[in-house]
């Protein structure tokens, strides 16, 4: 690995900006994501910021089952995101559809929907309903370690 690559990787590890996509979640996962920014968890100390546009993002936090309406939009958002980027399936819904597996508006698990656009997308899973904020931090930290 050249020095340049190392520097790039350092930047990526130290400053992951996340964009939050709700594809049909119940809100709890979303609240817990916002919770991460607030004083008790304060992920800014790890360099994590909530980006306001997918263009600025390094990771997409996807919450919720992928509904039929959200499916094409999730794919579009993934295309719009500046690469390299991670996809984080947050919560039981995004990982496996959880309690909603037989809902009629469910249009395929998030990872499959993303893989349709980009077969080599880096996808990480943080299960839980909702995952505790501690679990989210641990999950993202682990994912960054293996970059």
């Amino acid at each position: 690995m050249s020095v340049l690559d190392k520097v790039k990787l350092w930047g990526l590890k130290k400053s992951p900006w996340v964009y939050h996509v709700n594809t049909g979640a119940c809100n709890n996962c979303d609240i817990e994501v916002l919770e991460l920014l607030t004083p008790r968890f304060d992920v800014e100390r790890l360099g994590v910021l909530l980006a306001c546009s997918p263009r600025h993002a390094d990771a997409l936090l996807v919450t919720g089952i992928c509904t039929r309406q959200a499916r094409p939009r999730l794919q579009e958002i993934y295309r719009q995101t500046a690469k390299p980027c991670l996809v984080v399936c947050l919560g039981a819904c995004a990982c496996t559809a959880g309690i909603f597996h037989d809902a009629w508006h469910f249009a395929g698990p998030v990872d499959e929907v993303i893989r349709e656009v980009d077969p080599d997308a880096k996808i990480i899973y943080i299960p839980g309903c909702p995952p505790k904020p501690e679990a989210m931090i641990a999950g993202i930290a682990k994912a960054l370690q293996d970059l």
Partner: protein
Amino acid sequence: MTHKTLIPIGPYHPLQEEAEFFQLYCEGETVVDMDARISYNHRGIEGVSMNRTWDQVPYVVERVCGICSASHPLAYVQAVEEIAEVEVPERALYVRTIINELERIHSHLLWFGLAGHFIGYNTVFMWAWRYREPCLDALEVVTGSRINYANHTVGGSRKDLTPEMVKFVGERLDEIEGPLDMFITTALEDPILSLRLKDVGVLTEQDARALGACGPTARASNVPIDVRRDDPYAAYDRVDWDVMTCQNGDVFDKVVVRLLETKEAIRILRQALRDLPEGPVQASVKEVPPGEGVGHVEAPRGETFHFVKSNGGAGPERHKIRAPSFNNVPTFRASCIGQPIADVTITLASIDPCYSCTERMAVVADRDTGEELMNFADLVKLSRQKTEEIRKQL
């Protein structure tokens, strides 16, 4: 001719955590018309719950909306209890009250923080959420989870409160009571906050009544409706509390109403913790006979309503949910038009909309084959055709 721009808010917009889509028709910075599209979040929960058993459904409806995850199950279990004619133990009623009021505090503080965030006042966001933490701790100790409580079951309450828990909750309340007073003073006295929020997005009393607004949205417009008082459930008729209202219906009043309600919730909680009667928390329910039942609960955002129909089987035959945001979203048109874009966002946020509750689909389908006959575009075409025809006739 003025130039109109179409500004989309959403579907993915950091304003709300959820996907929703508003189209604002603007002239310059002023909104002249708007249109709401929903259903990005529609999951078909009513359908899911009709495939579950009586005891499983509370866990499904809890996930209708994360922030109201105590109100929806409560409304549902009340509906089922009505069908099965269960006598819920006194202690369970108090436990339900405690959990629902804790939820109200956490929800209102959450909203206040977000409102601060929307107007670019991040300090308020952080402070409000910091003071919300003790409340979540209390919920975690009482129910075992920070947000999805899974505590209301048909016939009572899943978990009982031990004396230690009662003490813990009381201590957490002491912790947030002081800051809350400070917040109310700040909100009422901060000159810039009132400059930014007063007379913004006014919903008149008339509009509020005509559009059927509910919850804090209505109460800020001087419409004193509150299910807790009008049709008491749980232990609300056994404690002493008041319905909070404000006069003007602007965003500022919606802030004030919510903050006052939070204080009121603390008052209710203190009484409930003090008077908690002894006894069991769970009545046994053997079966649910055929019949229909209705349950409604004052969620933090307004009245949530559940209708359940039973055919004597293992689960509901029909389950209908109407969440408060469904009533409140139509008020947008009354309160947003004529506002500058900068105010629309906070006005939209001011009803504390919850789209995952509200989402639904309209499908015109063939009754036999289930095939979709028309979609939205077709319907629009249809309606335009009709206009054309009428025009020709004239």
